[in-house]
């Protein structure tokens, strides 16, 4: 059964290897130059005071060069869509096509039970899906390593400045792509087994996968571990967004963009609180005079009136626990869906 499965997987394998080879060539052609730019930027061995500046300059240089940020986003997008594409073109037809063409009557009346047939098919397809996606991810990680280091040094200012917890970076690096690949593939197989027609199954696979991929960073990932909370002085925040509104500037909102002393942390929410720890939106009367409000004295003024910034966040040290938890979640979903396929194939023969 394994040999048959490999024989039938040939075309898929060739397509995947061709895509990976094309991606590898693209990265290999541009990666060394990217690395040399990084070496020339002076970030490695920088003095703590100048690191952030050098890193930002480096990212700005890449951004201005055009090619690199296009390649960067292209690579990230490729890794993001690969599990969906695999689910569509490998997963959905796996059972549905057999039923549509009637070859199920050939496949399932040889001296091999359906359970074994499906076990081998899911194993071969699932492992290949994981290998392809993780392979792309590792290639991209090698290529983008200088960008990651620059961001780690606090570089910012453009598209390239995405931290390890940002949706695009988190989902395309580490071990998370393994979980997405297995899930995407088995989702396609399950849709095909339930809908029994390949093309509608592909549409459903794409829709469900897209919804889950959007829901995960928004609602699921932030809650995998309880967020930490901290309250810091408004004057200690290096990077902050301030919005003032209302009549004569009586309202304000403060959004922290980085947590002091916690590089790489994932900020979930932030807002100003008063001395009692309650959220405030009203500017203290003493700080509303135009000269204070529009000048450098605004934050010290807020601080003098007991206003501080409350931040809920996930520390950088939780990166790998998050990766493991999310991968485990997706693998568990894949296993549950595979169980549905076995039940469907064996109990409800139609």
């Amino acid at each position, binding site marked *: 059964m394994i040999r048959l499965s490999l024989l039938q997987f040939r075309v898929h394998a060739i397509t995947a290897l061709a895509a990976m080879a094309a991606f590898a060539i693209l990265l290999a052609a541009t990666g060394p130059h990217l690395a040399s730019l990084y070496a020339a930027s002076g970030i490695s061995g920088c003095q703590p005071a100048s690191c952030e500046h050098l890193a930002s300059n480096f990212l700005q240089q890449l951004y201005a060069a055009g090619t690199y940020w296009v390649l960067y986003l292209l690579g990230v997008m490729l890794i993001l869509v690969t599990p969906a594409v695999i689910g569509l073109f490998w997963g959905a037809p796996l059972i549905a096509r057999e039923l549509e*063409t*009637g070859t199920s009557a*050939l496949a399932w*009346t040889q*001296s091999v*039970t359906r359970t074994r047939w499906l076990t081998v098919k899911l194993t071969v397809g699932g492992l290949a899906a994981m290998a392809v996606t993780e392979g792309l991810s590792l290639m991209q990680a090698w290529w983008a390593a200088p960008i990651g280091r620059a961001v780690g040094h606090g570089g910012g200012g453009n598209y390239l400045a995405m931290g390890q917890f940002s949706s695009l970076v988190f989902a395309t690096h580490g071990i998370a792509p393994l979980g997405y690949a297995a899930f995407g593939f088995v989702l396609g197989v399950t849709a095909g087994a339930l809908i029994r027609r390949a093309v509608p199954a592909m549409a459903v696979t794409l829709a469900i996968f897209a919804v889950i991929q959007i829901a995960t960073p928004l609602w699921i990932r932030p809650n995998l571990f309880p967020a930490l909370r901290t309250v810091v002085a408004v004057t200690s925040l290096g990077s902050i967004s301030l919005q003032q509104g209302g009549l004569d500037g009586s309202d304000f909102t403060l959004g922290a963009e980085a947590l002091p002393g916690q590089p790489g942390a994932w900020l979930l929410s932030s807002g100003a609180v008063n001395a009692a720890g309650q959220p405030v939106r009203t500017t203290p009367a003493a700080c509303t005079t135009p000269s204070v409000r529009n000048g450098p004295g605004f934050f010290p003024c807020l601080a003098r009136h007991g206003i501080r910034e409350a931040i809920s966040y996930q520390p950088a040290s939780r990166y790998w626990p998050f990766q493991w938890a999310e991968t485990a979640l997706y693998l568990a979903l894949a296993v549950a869906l595979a169980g549905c396929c076995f039940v469907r194939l064996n109990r*409800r023969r139609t």
Partner: protein
Amino acid sequence: MSAAIQASGLGKRYRRTWALRDCTLAVPEGRVVGLVGPNGAGKTTLLRLAAGMLAPTCGTITVLGERPAAGPAQLARVGFVAQDTPVYARMTVSEHLRLGGWLNPGWDNGLAQQRIAKLGLDPKQRAGSLSGGQRAQLALTLALAKRPALLILDEPVASLDPLARREFLRGLMEAVAEHGLSVVLSSHLVADLERVCDYLVVLVASRVRVAGEVSALLASHHRLSGPRRDPGTRHPAGQEVITESHTDKQSNLLVRTNEPILDPAWTVKPVSLEDLVLAYMSRTGDDTPTRQQQLGVVS
């Protein structure tokens, strides 16, 4: 005689419609059994249930004494050629034979190679580009080289031209003669079955209308024609009227009896298998639902 296929109260429902309902039959082993009936009689459903492709909604079915597709050993003993003889369009002929070898412990590679050579199929040709007849032959080769004890074929020749049809059935008969396997073959064309079957089951609306050895069926059925008799006239005991038709002057009957026809008013002629099957297929009134309706009126 043990049963190749034994069904009792067997039913298969798709949502609200029953494809097969309350079917009870026994198909003997060691025969070439023809399963014949009109479209929609439940032939395909019955055979797919027997091959383990479907699970029954109710009732039981055993094939060679076991539940269909109960395990690898049971699967190995049953060969199945589905309607339209599906094969993998993208795989070559020789890849199909490799598939058969990989998936069947009892695979007879010599038999498979020999058949392919005899048929003149190019091993490198993709199955998708084979003609309908060649595809059917490939599917039959796969099923035969598995060396099953029972071969189930669902309308294997329905879509073939007369020549391909004859070739297919000839190949089937050669294999039966050589390996002595049991065969159950469905068709709605009696002429196909007449050529190969020695046992016949007529299935109409899930019910077995008649079943028996072809020679015995032919010997016990007669066509009578003579002067008109009013419908409902009593016939001698032991004579069962299957169909009757009457004109102003003449009556034509098809009767089943194991005794000689003594009434000199009748001209007695033998029946063809086709006439016999058509007579049973057109006969009405012995369906269980009808009986139940009558009972309902009485109570």
